[in-house]
């Protein structure tokens, strides 16, 4: 274990030196050796490297949000590791959707921090945040909405395009196939059933291989059959994508299936 860490540390140091040389930045290289012993550098590099590899995908600290004219909503601290599936539970009015939007970078917290895969969202600029969200966070909403002018397939390709990922038709088709939507690529979203639409929304959330999947009441509009199917698909697909899944819900049908819970209270 130690040797692997040391190895990665040396590797990291090499990278630092290489990048300093590569950037033709003699000052950086000089500072690197002036202010730190070789051991210090190695140690620093080891922990940084380890920090990069840690598996906490979603973490909040002292998170609060205040609506204009309202009192601050305080959210509990929590951390979700890689491959874990979580439920976010709470009565209406406890700020579930607000928290989901804070986690998804759709809303900037009044105070505190949200980090996704080690990146602090409030620290990102607007443009960086947009790109980060597109690539690393997949969001599924209560009602599946789409760009109406586009077909199902085009909606998936648009998700890639917007995230700055090279549009890949075979990836989109593969995902649709996995979600049992084989022949729906060229269909308009309005031609699909509610259940099918929710599956397309899942496909769209997964298309860029995100690290975190956030789902806002994904089953509330579905009947029992579709609800179970969507829950199964979400869990399966999150596993396959090695992503962390967080489902915001007050749907009792889901409580039986997911053990890890965050509860919001008034």
């Amino acid at each position: 274990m130690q040797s692997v860490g040391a190895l990665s540390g040396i590797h990291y140091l090499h990278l630092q030196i290489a990048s300093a040389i590569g950037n033709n930045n003699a000052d950086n290289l000089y500072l690197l050796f002036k202010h730190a012993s070789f051991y210090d550098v190695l140690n620093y590099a080891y922990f940084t490297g380890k920090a990069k590899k840690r598996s906490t995908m979603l973490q909040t600290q002292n998170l609060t949000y205040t609506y204009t004219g309202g009192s601050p909503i305080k959210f509990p601290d929590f951390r979700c590791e890689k491959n874990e599936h979580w439920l976010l539970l709470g009565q209406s009015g406890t700020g579930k959707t607000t928290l989901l939007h804070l986690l998804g970078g759709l809303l900037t917290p009044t105070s505190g921090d949200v980090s996704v895969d080690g990146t602090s969202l409030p620290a990102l600029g607007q443009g960086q945040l947009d790109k980060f969200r597109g690539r690393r966070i997949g969001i599924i909403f209560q009602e599946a909405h789409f760009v109406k002018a586009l077909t199902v397939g085009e909606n998936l390709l648009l998700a890639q395009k917007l995230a700055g990922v090279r549009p890949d038709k075979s990836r989109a088709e593969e995902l649709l196939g996995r979600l049992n939507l084989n022949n729906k690529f060229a269909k308009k979203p309005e031609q699909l059933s509610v259940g099918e639409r929710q599956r397309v929304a899942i496909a769209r959330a997964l298309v860029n291989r995100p690290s975190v999947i956030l789902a806002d009441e994904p089953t509330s509009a579905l009947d029992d059959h579709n609800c179970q199917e969507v829950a199964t698909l979400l869990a399966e697909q999150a596993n396959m994508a090695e992503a962390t899944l967080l489902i915001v819900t007050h749907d009792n049908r889901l409580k039986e299936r997911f053990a890890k819970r965050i509860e919001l209270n008034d």
Partner: protein
Amino acid sequence: MNLLSLSWKNIVNKPLSMTLSLVLFGLGVGLISLLLLLNTQLEEKFEANLAGIDLVIGAKGSPLQLILSSMYHIDSPTGNVSIAEVKPFLNPKHPLIKTAVPLSLGDSYKGYRIVGTTPEFVDLYEGRPAQGEVFEHTMEVTLGATVAAALELETGSTFQSSHGFVQDDNLIHDHETPFTVVGVLEPTGSVVDQLILTNTQSVWAVHGHEAGAAEAEEEHEHEEGEAHDHEHEQEAVKPLTEYPDEDITSLLIRFKGRNFQALNMQRSINENTDMQAATPAIEINRLYNLIGVGAEALRWLAIIIVIVSGLSIFISLYSSLRDRRYELALMRTMGGSRGFLFGMIILEGLILAVLGYAIGISLSHLGMEALAGNLSDSYRYTFTGWRFLSEEWLLLAGALGIGFVAAILPAIQASRTDIHKTLAEG
């Protein structure tokens, strides 16, 4: 899935809501473009037919009428002047005059005007024979390119002329010797294309023959008839000054130089003779000013239509945002930047403008082509709908400008979409 195709699909997805804007925009652009086309082709016609002519001398009357009839062949002549009166101007040694070309008007063949003149007339308009030669002897005619093509006449064809400018079987001259085509001119782009040219004596001969029925002038007319017969024996044509008693319609004059004396000549003719002299450039400017008011009013109307259509594009884009609020928020959550949404809406405005422009340009060119036949008849000039002007690029730039301005507020609105609020409201 790029921005352009996304904007395009957004428009195509709701074609009805955009139709009114498009039709309005197309109408406005079409009207402006049609005015441009008409104006350009008319001005070109007037320019091409100026032919360096400094002065037109003819019978007293409206100077504009004199210019229109003698230079553009679109109005009735003012009357006749006698050779005796214009004799000084026909003198080749005149100190001020470089060229003086006589015109005798009043006859036509199948609606195309016959002009009795001298071969110098062809030189004025820089005409060159495409086949055959320029008329020389009496009863020989040379055809303008359009006439030859329209009437399917060629060298060697013969025909009888008709009195007046409209084809009327009762007015056909019953002259013994028909006109014989000896040549066809290359297209010049000027009024010559629409004319049938012959020498002055031919016109006299035709009318002489007709008037021969009138007893009072029998003898004189008989002489004319003889003269006409002689020419068929290839006798040299005598200069016009040999016939002081005959009439011509007008005289086209080119000065040696535009000096004070030359300018004075016009005043002197108007004040001291029974004839009038008119300057083509001045009369044509007067004409522009007269028809300019109408054209100006139409132009403003077109501009107002375009502005209203811009407003209508603005309204349809703005109201489409309400339907697409959720979509816009969704695109933001999928990583779309504010700039992307801004660009998407702007592009929708621009696409509408380009479509409207395309509709307008098609309308104006098709309309122009449809009008061309009528216009060519009444203006003695070939019009076409298949000419494209550099101003039309300016028009495109203007259309894009309007599309941009119409889209800018909706685009700003779209880029400011509050993701959280929109999504939370579902």
